[in-house]
């Protein structure tokens, strides 16, 4: 072997550099030089021996991937790329998460101000946070759809039962990862979502012979790191989120993927004989090689998914940030994240302990399902019962989600419901979104048109609409629906209802008062009065709701994502 100086003497500097570069590339790719890569990208036939197969034998990253796929499974159907997409999302979350970790301290003293620091002081910090949060939601969705697809195409059947079992566990970890991240901003949303979640732990069924108070009390103590959710709890959930759960997910991912490679991706059900598994017996003419076809395909999907996530984080959606977590102030309506909404629905169906006990049972049922459902055929026509069960379960989950939605929440007093719609404690609204300068001091009535001020006019229209939903009339006032009430109840304690709502104000008056109390700070007060029909001197409702609005608070910007025109 000639030294580099001899080579330069022999070939000249240029040729030596090209040769060295070629050698370096060949070493890095474990077998493919620059010309091989170019020919692969051009779609040429490989030379013999095929250099594109060597990395699958000799390199670490490529040996994880199969060197070729059955062409039948490389189309959108049957995989819909969902497994690959789940992996992509996991990597995506890891990268954005590590960047966010740099700007985060898991302490109740600073976690919340860290959030505002990320939003207002870290270049591209908001984008990074949005991408992480959006990615988390997309990942839950993708993993769930991946499971649904695997069920529908019968891919959990022998020999892939264990792959399915690890997949169910990965779904659980994905949901837990997403949910454990919920607590970290330490705002009202995170604090109360986790508090509700942990109250489930308190109600969980205990093994027989053990005092539930002691058992569940200790479970709760461990989960919240103290008698109440505080510094200890935040640190625990942070470590779960950034350390334990990603680690476990990684381990189960590799087991899962090893099984996928070992058994191959199952072909579309109609493509093979009943009871046969031909995924690993791929005829030469049905092979699609990883290099270059699968690799370029995956690079394309990576680029497209990145494009969607970046653009979505920038224009479609902002990760919410509510006010600082406050253990003594419970928000009026605590809502579970959408992917847990079904559990809130279930709580309306049955006893808490029963529901909490049912969830792990369901998980176990999912895990062992392929060992009991041993029908040989994967064809849709032969799996009518299985597909019907799936459809029913899917419908049940959709209905449960709907039942857990705010549509079925327990309402507070009518004046508070109106107040929460117009001047919510958290987030924005039509009224808060009115630009500061377009909200002059004064007293305004619901539905009052303000000339030259479409923003305020719109807010007051919303005020009227909200009053309409939570009012009724005893005096024939045509503005509202007739009051409906139970004649048998005494007039002093009578509850009134209307077409929409079962507790409303009869013939109310309402107004919005705007005062500037400091430079750049306005006090918005909603005032309600409803006279008691039993005694004109007495008020059924005599309430006020105050919200402060600072000129710089940026509710207008927040509005554009809240599906509200402000």
């Amino acid at each position: 072997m000639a030294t580099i100086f001899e080579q330069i003497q022999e070939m000249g500097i240029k040729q030596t550099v090209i040769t060295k570069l070629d050698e370096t590339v060949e070493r890095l790719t474990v077998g493919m030089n620059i010309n091989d890569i170019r020919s692969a990208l051009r779609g040429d036939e490989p030379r013999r021996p095929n250099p594109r197969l060597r990395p699958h034998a000799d390199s670490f990253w490529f040996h994880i991937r199969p060197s070729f796929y059955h062409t039948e499974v490389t189309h959108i159907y049957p995989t819909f790329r969902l497994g690959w997409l789940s992996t992509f999302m996991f990597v995506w979350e890891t990268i954005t998460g590590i960047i966010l970790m740099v700007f985060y301290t898991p302490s109740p003293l600073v976690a919340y101000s860290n959030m505002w620091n990320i939003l207002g002081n870290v270049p591209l910090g908001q984008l990074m946070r949005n991408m992480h949060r959006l990615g988390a939601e997309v990942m839950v969705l993708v993993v769930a759809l991946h499971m649904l697809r695997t069920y529908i195409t019968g891919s959990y059947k022998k020999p892939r039962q264990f792959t399915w079992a690890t997949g169910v566990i990965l779904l659980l970890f994905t949901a837990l990862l997403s949910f454990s991240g919920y607590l970290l901003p330490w705002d009202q949303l995170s604090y109360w979502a986790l508090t509700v979640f942990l109250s489930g732990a308190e109600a969980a069924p205990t093994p027989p012979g053990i005092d539930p108070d002691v058992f569940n009390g200790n479970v709760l103590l461990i989960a919240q790191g103290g008698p109440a959710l505080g510094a200890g709890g935040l640190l625990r959930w942070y470590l779960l989120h950034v350390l334990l759960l990603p680690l476990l997910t990684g381990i189960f991912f590799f087991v899962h993927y090893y099984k996928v490679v070992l058994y191959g991706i199952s072909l579309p059900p109609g493509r093979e004989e009943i009871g046969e598994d031909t995924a690993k017996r791929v005829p030469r003419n049905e092979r699609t090689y990883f290099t270059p076809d699968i690799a370029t395909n995956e690079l394309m999907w990576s680029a497209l998914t990145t494009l969607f996530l970046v653009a979505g984080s920038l224009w479609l959606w902002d990760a919410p940030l509510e006010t600082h977590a406050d253990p003594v102030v419970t928000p009026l309506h605590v809502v579970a994240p959408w992917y847990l909404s079904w559990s809130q629905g279930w709580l309306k169906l049955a006893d808490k302990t029963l529901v909490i006990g049912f969830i792990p049972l369901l998980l176990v049922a999912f895990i062992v399902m392929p060992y009991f459902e041993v029908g040989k055929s994967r064809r849709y026509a032969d799996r009518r019962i299985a597909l019907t069960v799936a459809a029913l379960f899917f419908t049940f989950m959709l209905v449960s989600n709907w039942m857990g939605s705010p549509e079925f929440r327990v309402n507070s007093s009518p004046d508070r419901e109106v107040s929460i719609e117009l001047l919510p404690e958290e987030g924005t609204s039509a009224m808060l979104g009115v630009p500061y300068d377009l909200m002059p001091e004064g007293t305004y009535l619901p539905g009052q048109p303000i000339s030259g001020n479409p923003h305020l006019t719109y807010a007051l229209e919303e005020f009227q609409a909200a009053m309409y939903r939570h009012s009724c009339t005893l005096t024939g006032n045509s503005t509202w629906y007739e009051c409906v009430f139970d004649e048998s109840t005494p007039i002093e304690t009578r509850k009134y209802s209307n077409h929409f709502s079962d507790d409303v104000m009869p013939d109310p008056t309402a107004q919005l008062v705007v005062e500037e109390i400091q430079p750049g700070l306005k006090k918005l007060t909603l005032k309600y009065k409803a006279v008691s029909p039993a005694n004109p001197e007495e008020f059924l409702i005599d309430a006020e709701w105050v919200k402060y609005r600072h000129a710089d608070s940026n509710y207008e910007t927040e509005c554009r994502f809240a599906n509200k025109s402000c």
Partner: protein
Amino acid sequence: MQVKIVIGTVAFMLTMMILGFAVLREPARLSQYTDAAKGRSIEAGAHIFENNCATCHGVDGDATECYNSAGEQVGCQGLPLNNYDLLCGDPTYRMGTLNWAGTKEDFVKTTISAGRFGTVMPVWSEEFGGPMRPDQVQNVTDFVLNWESEDLCANEPVRYAWPEAAADYLASADGSAGDATNGAELYVTYGCSGCHGDTALEGSNAVGPWLGDIADVGNTRVDGLDAAGYVYQSILDPNAFIVPDCPTGPCASPSAMPGTFAARIGSNPTDMADLLAFLLGN
């Protein structure tokens, strides 16, 4: 495959362009969110202030409800906060009277956190045993500081010019008609009795020296000052002479007595004559 490479490349370039756009608008967005963080902190502070602080300091922070039409303090005990002395200048007048060396924000935050010794201002931060979390103290601080405006700071209030010597003051129109009965009431409403105790009951003083015998003792404290001159000087400038022995041990230096009486009594200067008449018993 070529199509896929093209799609992937286009998507990658679009992503880079979008990121470039995001970088370009970033400075404006960052300052918008920095302002929003402050704005929302002020809003949160307004809620806390209304529920906890307004009773003493007034809903508008000017403590007007605390004074009757004659300018006498009634009911509540808070100082006005929407006020030149607290917010304008650097250091502000009140920071000066307390020898405060830190920033204005620290001054307000520390006062809220730790309360004000010798007054009814309680401790608020949970760090010192109060009910508020640190972020809530910060919210209220932001809210109080938000009262500062060009209008408020445009005109420095005219302060009463206290004569150098007590004799000159007592000879003036404001000082000539001391009313000991009113002085006894003022001794309580200005908060003197909180530290100096009941003048009729020796040993009732909690923090400062007992003043029941100040008519005699006052003559001996500072060379060249009689009792009236000494008490007059001590009220206006507590640090001019610090008594060696306090009920809690050696008296602290600077004096624990607030330096705010020159301003507070200055808004109603005949009160000084009443207080002197009461304390010196003539």
